[in-house]
């Protein structure tokens, strides 16, 4: 946790002034009904061009400060103003460099895009910065993906340069070997025991952009196809986990904003670009330009497109992921994450098993409902234990304990140390999901920060009804929701965060939107629990009928000595779940050891296989990292 800024803040720094963008402020996009290859391709390239044109237009020749790396990428991709851009690059390279791996990947892109456009002096200025500036490699997998992909490509671009011409003090060949070694190691992990930093709403860019660059510019055909295959892999997962383009369900990492307004993440830039089924976020998510700069070199397979846009059938997807590495205070290095997703036309439910997983920014479970336009809508429901511990942070980070929480806040992650937070995992939460039923149980030791459960109730819910049965009923979009707190509770306004101007780290103030804002259901009992069930409004004659159906279901629970729930779900499943024990469904205990890397109608892979099969209808693509082959087939 080496003082790396939040992506939203960094994106704002990179982008500069934001003004109207066609897709961001325009009507909801509609995926084309005509899915012929040329139609999809043309729509994709049109979207990419929109990003490039918008960025290029933010560069004012008489105001050099408006021309940053994003604008340079845009102009080079559009083949505009090479002389102006060259001059600006020379100016920028005279300044002290900063940004580490966030510096490396834009300048790698500029180096490749500018090969035939930049002046020799501009190219030399960039090249020399890779000798004089010493970027840190960082401490997370997304940092390393950016660092090593960039170093690899630059070492290929300058293949025979000596050690003293690189900041690493290693020759081009040595840099290539080191970078290739790590990138293959990371791909091996992801394709055998699952991805770390899985399904991130923002960090998806830190993986997708480097993989695109490898797919586009790597000279070594092995690295080129590996980049292509990993990008396919990432986009297939995005397609499978999005509801109308909105990434929902469990996330290894998300943000205070994205966990509520589920659309508002860089992931939506990728959904918009690839699938055309949701608007992009402001400024194309900040990093979108760095994907757009090379995006013409990627062709989304139709099978992935179909997985993204087809919500005509309900489906369950189970995936295996892993936490980031734990350096200390843990018996496990990278514990497994068992993730479940249930997707329907009107809503989706997603979760993993709970417990301590990643240290910061984790989101464990939710129900997210479909809305006609997701912009500004908090279309989600969940509960969580707001846990904060420096010892847990030290499991993952090498820093000293004191000041860690303050440091996080200064990096744009303000909520880690506040009791009303709605983001983060807890070692004292256990979650089980069966289709559209979630049971979350809590057993919080006395003295833990913080002794409460926070249930999120959106400003966008309607018909919120506290039933005498103990259930709270509500409607979100075309979805009926039933939320059962297992212990007494009270309501609080959920305070938001408003960023304040600051030259030194992230500063903010809390804001209260009153009765018009979101609410927290706060329950301060240490042994506790939440049950949520969801259904489409089409399944019942009325909201009252839904409530009657829920109330008619068998339900038993107790909280002492540990929380236990026994219920029959709306789907007729008999679930028994005891905190600390394997969930039991219809008398059969769940065996997580049998969890596959991917298992569902669209994505399938065996644990350890390095082989992902993507299917939709008659279409199939197999990504096989054992043979480095991409195999497409169509069922006759």
């Amino acid at each position: 946790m080496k003082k790396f800024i939040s992506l939203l803040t960094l994106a704002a720094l990179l982008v500069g002034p934001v003004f109207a963008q066609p897709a961001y402020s325009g009507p909801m996009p509609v995926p084309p009904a005509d899915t012929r290859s040329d139609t999809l391709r043309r729509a994709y390239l049109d979207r990419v061009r929109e990003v490039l044109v918008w960025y290029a237009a933010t560069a004012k020749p008489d105001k050099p400060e408006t021309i940053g790396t994003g604008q340079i990428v845009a102009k080079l991709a559009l083949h505009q103003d090479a002389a102006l851009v060259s001059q600006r690059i020379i100016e920028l390279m005279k300044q002290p460099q900063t940004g580490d791996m966030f510096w490396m990947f834009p300048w790698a892109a500029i180096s490749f895009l500018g090969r035939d456009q930049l002046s020799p002096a501009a190219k030399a200025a960039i090249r020399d910065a890779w000798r004089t500036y010493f970027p840190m490699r960082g401490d997370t997998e997304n940092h390393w993906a950016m660092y090593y992909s960039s170093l690899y490509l630059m070492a290929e671009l300058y293949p025979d340069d000596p050690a003293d011409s690189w900041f690493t003090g290693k020759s081009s060949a040595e840099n290539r070997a080191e970078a290739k070694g790590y990138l293959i190691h990371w791909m091996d992990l992801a394709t055998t025991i699952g991805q770390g930093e899985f399904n991130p709403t923002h960090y998806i860019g830190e993986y997708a952009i480097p993989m695109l660059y490898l797919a586009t510019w790597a000279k070594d055909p092995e690295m080129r196809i590996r980049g292509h295959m990993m990008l396919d892999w990432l986009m297939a997962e995005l397609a499978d986990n999005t509801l109308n383009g909105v990434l929902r369900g469990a996330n290894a990492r998300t943000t205070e904003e994205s966990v509520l307004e589920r659309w508002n993440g860089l992931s939506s830039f990728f959904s918009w670009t690839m699938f055309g089924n949701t608007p992009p976020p402001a400024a194309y998510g900040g990093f979108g330009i760095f994907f757009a700069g090379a995006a013409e070199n990627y062709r989304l397979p139709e099978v992935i497109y179909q997985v993204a846009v087809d919500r005509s059938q309900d489906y369950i997807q189970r995936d295996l992921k892993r936490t980031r590495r734990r350096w200390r205070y843990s018996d496990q290095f990278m514990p497994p994450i068992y993730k479940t997703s249930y997707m329907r036309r009107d809503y989706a439910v997603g979760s993993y098993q709970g417990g301590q997983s990643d240290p910061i920014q984790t989101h464990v479970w939710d129900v997210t409902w479909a809305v006609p336009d997701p912009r500004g809508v908090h279309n989600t429901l969940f509960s969580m234990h707001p846990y904060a511990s420096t010892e847990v942070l030290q499991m993952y980070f090498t820093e000293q304990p004191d000041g860690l929480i303050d440091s996080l806040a200064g990096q744009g992650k303000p909520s880690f140390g506040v009791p009303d937070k709605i983001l983060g995992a807890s070692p004292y939460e256990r979650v089980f999901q069966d289709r559209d039923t979630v049971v979350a149980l809590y057993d919080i030791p006395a003295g833990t920060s913080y002794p409460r459960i926070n249930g999120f109730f959106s400003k966008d819910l309607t018909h919120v009804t506290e039933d005498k049965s103990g259930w709270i009923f509500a409607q979100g979009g075309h979805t009926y929701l039933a939320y059962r707190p297992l212990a007494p509770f009270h309501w609080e306004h959920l305070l938001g965060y408003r960023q304040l101007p600051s030259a030194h780290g992230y500063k903010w103030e809390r804001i209260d939107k009153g009765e018009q804002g979101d609410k927290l259901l706060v329950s301060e009992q240490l042994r506790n629990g939440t049950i949520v069930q969801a259904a489409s409004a089409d399944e019942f004659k009325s909201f009252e009928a839904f409530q009657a159906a829920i109330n008619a279901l068998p339900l038993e629970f107790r909280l002492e000595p540990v929380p236990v729930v026994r219920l029959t779900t709306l789907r007729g499943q008999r679930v028994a779940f005891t905190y600390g024990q394997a969930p039991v469904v219809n008398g059969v205990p769940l065996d997580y050891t049998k969890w596959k890397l991917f298992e569902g109608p669209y994505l399938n892979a065996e644990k350890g296989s390095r082989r992902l099969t993507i299917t939709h209808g008659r279409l199939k693509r197999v990504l096989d990292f054992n043979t480095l082959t991409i195999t497409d087939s169509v069922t006759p």
Partner: protein
Amino acid sequence: MNGFPSGLAAGLRLLALLALSAASRPLAAAPAGFYLCAALNKGYVTGSKITTVSGLFKRDGAGGWQHIGYNDLSITAAAFDPRDHSVIYTAAVNGCWRSLDGGQTWRQTNGWDITEGRDVAVDPRSPDHVYLALPDGVAVSPDRAQTWVRRENGLPDRGKYTQTIKVDRAHAGRVLAGCESGIYLTENGAKSWRRVLPTAATVDDLQQAWNDPRQWAAVTQSDGAWASIDGGVTWRRFPGVPADHALYNITFDPTHPRRLAIASWHYGVFTSEDSGATWTARNAGLPEPHRVARVGVDPDTGRLYASVVNESLYTSDDFGRTWRRGALEGSVVNNFITVPVAVK
């Protein structure tokens, strides 16, 4: 606590021995250089337009600090080849960097499989051997960091997070490592390790006394401060040092064998002038909250330094009784390094 009889009386006997030892032995060879590793990064986050100069600094003749080498705010430690001080090793996020020319040029000595170096040490009696403390154990180089090999036999599979590593200057291949589960000792160049002090949480610092190589001191995150008078084989708590919060480092005063100092974010500065028998909080003049990341003692003058996080490097010429604000505004010092005279 291996080998010690229990009870207060035994503790007092230990301290008497420490004091006797301190009083009776001259200091080691006169130190030649005083360095620190610092991050001058107040308010800096990646992507900021703030430009900082961080890394390794050497105290110059006027008492100022001269930056050496590359700009890296992640440097946590540095070590020098005793034969030639232009050979420098740093422990940093990228692993271990080495310069062969006094910091003019550098090489990242490790590959991707070594990361986040926490501490680095050169064996003064076998200076080609370099030891690197890592979040996942210990690496050793037999060839001045040209190559690295993991040597963790005897360290636990889990529990080998290593924060600090120090080589016994009296015996080649004798090394102490401060890990998350205690202090480990090797006497064969890390071919095998054995635990000599179990702890509940990370050992943050280990130091060898200047006047007597058998004397060692250690501080921990949750187990207080410890002393050894037999080369780190057995350990005894320093009395009077609290253990409720983390202690970040401990230092012997090279100019005065009975003086020690401890740094702590929570407690500030503790000093002892009787070989650890009694300790006094010395925070008058330091900003509130104290938040001291590191203490160090100038080997030439005995000046005590305290790095107050993101504030400044405070100095005291009366061993902590009074402090004044000093250089390196907005800094955090990760380490002080005192380097004995080099052959070259």
